[in-house]
């Protein structure tokens, strides 16, 4: 089987989420990549260096700079004449584009796969990960999104893929990019961090969220996450949200502070290796999944902990 993997990038550098999708694709067959964007020579070089990669298709066009689904989907569809499967990392970019490709190919997409069981059979989470379904497709072409935490990352170096320029129909004239507010942070990225410190509603304000969570995260070299309640209340930006409908993370250590542990939150972090919970309510559901719990007032515990580290 010939697979095509969507390369996640920001026109400058290749994102780690790509590497997990490559691992999933390699279980199906030959791995080709697609780099679509503007001024993406560097990304294409990085893509060709990933272990196990054959061809790297590069579509360098201003119409693809912001990965608008309206423009990118037809490009991918045009490459599906010569590929049997297309895989996307389950990022917001992948989730935006993949179904548009699937519908154009008249294929039922398989979302957020956790494993490859066979050429047509996959497992995927449903009901916020409270159930795992094994599904078998009868479609001739496969359109798949890949949960990053479920697959090891392919080695970013050692490969010798060949780069080939491709072009599509360019701008379809349906949509235009108007702007972005992308947070710049010195901290590790949430989805690839080894340690995450996450804050919940209990933080009470944006000031307290930063005053309590940030110094602890700095001490642990951690990324910062949040519950939906903390994001909705404006204590933390939307891209911090961990959960069923936010980011899926699986760090070595996840520290949940003032988070109750609703199923929608657990859905995003319960595959973390070690979970630590700090909560004043000893019956909080988070303690049912926590490896290490400390019951008490976070406003006393967190400053003391930060100081002692």
């Amino acid at each position, binding site marked *: 089987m010939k697979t095509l993997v969507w390369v996640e990038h920001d026109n400058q550098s290749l994102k780690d989420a790509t590497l997990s999708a490559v691992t999933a694709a390699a279980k199906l067959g030959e791995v080709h990549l697609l780099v679509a964007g503007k001024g993406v020579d560097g990304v294409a070089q990085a893509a060709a260096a990933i272990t196990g990669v054959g061809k790297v298709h590069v579509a360098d066009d201003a119409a693809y700079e912001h990965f608008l689904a309206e423009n990118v989907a037809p490009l991918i569809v045009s490459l599906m004449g010569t590929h049997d499967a297309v895989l996307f990392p389950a990022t917001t970019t992948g989730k935006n584009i993949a179904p548009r490709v699937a519908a154009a190919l008249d294929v039922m997409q398989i979302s957020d796969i956790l494993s490859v069981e066979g050429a047509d059979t996959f497992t995927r989470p449903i009901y916020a990960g409270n159930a795992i379904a094994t599904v078998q497709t009868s479609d001739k072409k496969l359109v798949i999104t890949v949960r990053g935490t479920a697959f090891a990352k392919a080695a970013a170096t050692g490969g010798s893929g060949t780069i080939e320029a491709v072009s599509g129909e360019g701008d379809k004239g349906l949509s235009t990019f108007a702007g972005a507010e992308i947070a710049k942070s010195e901290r590790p990225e949430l989805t690839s961090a080894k340690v995450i410190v996450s804050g919940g509603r209990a933080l009470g304000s944006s000031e307290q969220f930063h005053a309590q969570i940030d110094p602890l995260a700095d001490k642990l070299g951690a990324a910062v996450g949040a519950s939906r309640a903390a994001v909705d209340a404006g204590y933390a930006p939307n*891209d911090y949200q961990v959960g069923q409908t936010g980011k899926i993370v699986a760090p070595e250590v996840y520290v949940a502070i003032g988070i109750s542990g609703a199923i929608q939150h657990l859905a995003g972090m319960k595959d973390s290796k070690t*979970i630590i919970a700090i909560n004043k309510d000893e019956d909080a559901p988070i303690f049912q999944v926590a490896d290490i719990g400390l019951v008490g007032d976070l406003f006393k515990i967190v400053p003391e902990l930060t100081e002692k580290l």
Partner: protein
Amino acid sequence: MKVLVPVKRVLDYNVKPRVKADGTGVDLANVKMSMNPFDEIAIEEAVRLKEKGAATEVVVVTIGVAKAETDVLLTARAMGADRGILIQTDDEIEPLAVAKLLAKVAEEEQPGLIILGKQAIDDDSNQTGQMLAALLGWPQGTFASKVELGGNGVQVTREVDGGLETVDLKLPAIVTTDLRLNEPRYATLPNIMKAKSKPVAKKTVADYGVDATPRLKTLKVVEPAKRSAGIKVGSVDELVEKLKGLGVAK
């Protein structure tokens, strides 16, 4: 401008899903079913557009069992939708087939905007809106946290992995809702009573001539590996020792 809002009846988000012992799925017998939370946000947005004078009519459509009429179409009309369409079926309809049916409804109704939820909290597919956009050849503003109509288009602010992104779309367009778009109103009892007189058209899948045969076969459904509860420590000092043991603190 007419706004079309597709809504799905799902297991209520407060209910903990239980996997059936025979591994065929999740137990939905005698449990509370409600409107998908993202679809409530979609209706709220549509009703606000009408209240602002930007939309003339809000039409809500659901594909599902007969009970969807009372479980979700009534709620939607009580929230302010003008009329409903029930495409009744006892079969499980996959997102691709849902999108095909919705495309037919859109051809009939000619809405200027279709607002869907970004994700149904049962299948967690996050596909239908994007598929519908592809089938209709319309632009899509997914994971919206802000929707502003103006002139011949709509500006959508999207929640993306790195933060926020804004796109300008030509109308007609598809929008899918994220959690921060708005806070949906409650369907009050008096409004539920009043909503009963708002019309619902009843249809079948066959009425639309769509082949809804599933493409995916569910071989089995199992519970995920369980995490067992760990230990509780009694002091910050003990926690510091544990963190050292894990190698994340010096």
